[in-house]
Structures are given as C-alpha cells and as structure tokens.
C-alpha cells in the first residue's frame, strides 16, 4: 500500500520543458532537535552531569521525489508527523535539504505557521510591512497592496491596533490575506484553510479558486479531505517521510481514508 504510484496527473507533464513549478528530486531532510521546549544552559549542564542526551535526530523526509506543473493545485495529506510541514518548509527554503534537491520556479508566498504575527506588540499594519519586507517585497509593492490586504481580511478598523488585541480569527484572516495577496506564483499553505468563521472560510476558498484560475500553483497541507478533494488537481500522500501515493485526488483520498480506517464518512471529510 505504501508503494509510490505513478499514474499521476502531475507526473505526466514532467518531461514537458518549462512547465514545472516545483520539482523535488530525491529529497531527504534530517535534522536534530531537542526534547526540551526551552533549552537552557542550566538543564544542559544538569543533563550533561547525568549523561543524558537531549538531542534527537529526526528523519523527517526520506527520498521524496515528485513534480508539480504550473497551475496545479497539490494537496498534501498524511497523519501527524508524516513530514508534511517539513516538506513545505523545505520547498519554501526555510529548511535546507540533507540530500537531494528542490527547484522552485516562481515567487513563493507562504502561510505555514498560523499568523504573520511577528510581534504582538506591533500593530497589524507594522506586522504586514515587516512580514512583507522579510519575504522580499519592496516598500512600494507593499504600499500598493496594503489596502487590498486589509480589505480582504476585513480589518479596516483595527489595523493600527497592536496585534495582541486581535482575536485568533483576526490573526488568521490577516495572515491568510497577506499570503494570498502577494501575487505569488506559488502559494504554500499549511493547515490554514479553516481560518475565521464560516463566511470567511468560504471567501478564502473562493480566493484560492480564483488563484488557481490565474494559473497560480498552490500546495496545500490539510486534514480536511473534502476541501482537498474539491480544490486539488492532484494529491500527494506522505507517510513516515516517504511518498505513499501521488496522483488523482479521488484515488489517493480513497486509499488514505481506507488506511486511516475511518472510511469516507462525513466525519472524516469534515473540515475539522
């Protein structure tokens, strides 16, 4: 069941030149991290005295290869810890590959950690500016897009207030709005489709649809299988850091749901 399937829509276009938005080739990512949430010198010294190891190796991705053509919407599914977020961060250039190579053709916009929330003491406006500049946009581009971003997020009244006064829904809306309004060629979204209330969810869904229509490439990590099936042109299923299946959304989601032993019940498909 965990063998890579290659009947994929996406893989068919691999050999056509100039059509790939994202190419991942033999990608492995291994990193070392600590068990502790907040490592300190004190605990390190104490553990050193006890000869305990505090660092563990995580093999997050193992020999992952796939290709995404321009204009495709790739859904990425998998259980927790399957390596989905690591894959997104590697494509975004945040984590370096340990082996293999990732080629990304186009301007990338990311919505990986919920909230652009750089600094809750700063206003929404300052956070948008700082986040945009860090992403490599110019002041002029950001000034041009500012109103659009704020309007889409429906935060006109509070944009100059410190972000600590925002509700979590407002945080999510602003982050989503920033990510989609940067005119990205490639949009990376990690579990953030369900921001805001039902109405905003619908709005963000439509926004993504319209981005698809503009031939934007979108990679979405989501547990909401119904959303994935409706939005995506192909689906990649990651399991324990490897590609379990890649191809047609219906086929992959069916196998994945069967794997989860939940069947395609309403509960499983619900956007929880």
């Amino acid at each position, binding site marked *: 069941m965990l063998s890579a399937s290659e009947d994929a829509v996406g893989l068919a276009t691999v050999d056509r030149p100039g059509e790939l938005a994202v190419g991942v080739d033999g990608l492995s990512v291994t990193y070392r991290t600590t068990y502790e949430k907040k490592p300190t010198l*004190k605990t390190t010294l104490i553990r050193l005295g006890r000869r305990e190891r505090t660092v563990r190796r995580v093999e997050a991705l193992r020999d992952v290869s796939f290709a995404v053509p321009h204009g495709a919407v790739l859904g990425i599914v998998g259980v927790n810890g399957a390596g989905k977020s690591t894959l997104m961060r590697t494509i975004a250039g945040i984590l370096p590959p340990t082996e293999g190579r990732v080629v990304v053709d186009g301007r*990338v916009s990311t919505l990986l950690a919920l909230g652009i929330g750089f600094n809750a003491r700063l206003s929404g406006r300052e956070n948008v500016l700082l986040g945009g500049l860090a992403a490599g946009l110019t002041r002029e581009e950001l000034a041009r897009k500012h109103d659009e971003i704020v309007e889409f997020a429906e935060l006109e009244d509070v944009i100059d207030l410190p972000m600590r006064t925002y509700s979590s829904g407002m945080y999510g809306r602003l982050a989503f709005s920033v990510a989609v309004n940067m005119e990205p060629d490639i949009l990376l979204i990690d579990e953030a489709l369900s921001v805001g209330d039902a109405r905003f969810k619908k709005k963000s869904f439509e926004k993504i649809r319209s981005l698809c229509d503009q031939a934007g490439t979108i990679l979405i990590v989501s547990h909401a299988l119904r959303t994935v099936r409706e939005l995506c042109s192909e689906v990649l299923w990651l399991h324990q850091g490897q590609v379990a299946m890649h191809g047609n959304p219906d086929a992959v989601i069916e196998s994945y749901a069967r794997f989860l032993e939940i069947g395609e019940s309403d509960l499983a498909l619900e956007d929880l």
Partner: protein
Amino acid sequence: MSTASGTQVRSARFRSAEDEFGVVHVHEPHRVGLPPLRSYLSEFWRRRAFALELARTDLRAQHFNTALGQLWLVVNPVLLGLTYFILVDIVRRGSRGPDFLAHLMLCLFVFRFVSTSVTDGARSVVGGGRLILNTAFPRTLLPFSSTVAAFMRFLPTVVVYAILHAVSGLPVGLHVLWVFPILALVAVLAFGASMIAAAAQVYFRDLASFLPFFTRIWLYASPVLYYAEEVPDRFRLILDANPLYPLLASLSDVVTRGERPHAGLLALGLAWAVAIFFAGALFFVSREREFAVRL
C-alpha cells in the same frame, strides 16, 4: 533563499527566470554547513529595508520618535556616566579632571552601543518566532537590525559628548577624523557579537539572564572607568583578552586627547573586530537553518 542565477541554466525543465531577482530557487544541501555565500549576501542586501524597518519599529516602541523619548535616551546614559564619574572620583580621592569625565562619557557611550547591540541581538532570533517559521530570509538580518537600532540610539549621545568636549575646552584636531574608521570597527565588532549572542540564545534560553552580568564585567574590564595605561602589569591580561580594549583606547586617544592613534593598537583593534565578526558570522550562518526546528 538560494536565488542562484547560475543554477537556472541547469534546469531546462523550468521556464527561465522573468524578473530581476531570478525567480528560480534551487535548494540543495549546504556544503560545509554554509549556504552559498554569494546568493546569501545578495538576499541579505535585497532585504536590507527589512532590517532598517525592524530597527525603526523597535525604536518607535521605545518612543524614540518623540522628543521626550529621545531625551530619555540621552538622560539615561548621562546619569549613568555621572554616577560612575562620582564613584571613580571618590575612589581616586577627587583627583579626576574634566578630561577624564570626557573620556569616561565617550567610552561609556560607545560601550553601551556594543552592549545594547549584544543584549538586543540575543533576543532577536528567539523573538522572531513566527516570522522565522513562516518566511525564508537570511536570519543574520535579525541581529543586524539589533545593531542598527543600537547605533541609532547611540547617535544622540554623540551630540552630548560634543557639547561636553567643547565645554571642557578639550583640543580638537585633525586626528579626530580617526573616529570614523574606529567607530566602523566597533560597529563590525558589535554586529559580530550580536550574532554570537543571537545564535547562542536559541540553544540556551537562559543566556539572557546571564547577559547583564556579562556586560557589566565586560564594562569593568574595559578602559572606560580608567585609562588603559593605568592598568597595572599584573592585570594586563584583562586588556589583552578584551576585544574592545584597543578600539576604546584608540578612541579616547584621538578624541579626548587629540592625539594620533597608535598603529599597533589600531591593528589589534582591526584584528579583534574582524575576528569577532567572522566568528559570529560563521557560528550564526552555519546554524541559522536549524533555528526553524529549534524555536
């Protein structure tokens, strides 16, 4: 992050880059733990507006943009300087003159530029939280921004020193122009130290609570509350091991005394600044891709 225009050619399957940045990004394993430096530097340069804006935001949060806020930034170090002067003058039985006050103020202001850069730098990456998890950019921009903010805070104190210098009737000669290269070296050293503190803070979160002690000891080990030549031989090691000693001593020579700086001292200062900078850059850059999984 690796916008390497040279690598575009290799991927014929990808359409060619369209805008001035070269939009094809190739992410590959880092050789010897370092990202490709040329593209790293160009990405750094391209996002310099981010570091400046971050520094400005930081200062705005401290009301730097208001007259009272600026006044406070001046009053604080001046009061501290006066306190130290009284302390030292009592210890030295009142033998210190206005030239020493000028030396103390000058070196204290410069020292505070470095120490602020280090303490703010230590918080820069850990405080960068979500931005680091969400966006790829050269992380050195964060400690760099701390150094820029510290420098902006240092600037008003230059005016204070100038007034003190004039009031004390100290000489002004051509040698004073040496302040520019010397301060540039101090800034390089401050940025290097800021990178070290920022990266170390990721691994040891309690570092910030040790820093005040560290900076205080560093201050006492620097020729700020005394002249470098007053240090007895058996304590020479303190100066020799202090990266700031040659720069502070040279600064005091050229500014408060209007003398030509000692070539040997300048060379030592240059060596220290370059060494700290490269040590910091190497430590930070070789580890910065790990920050996203360590925060």
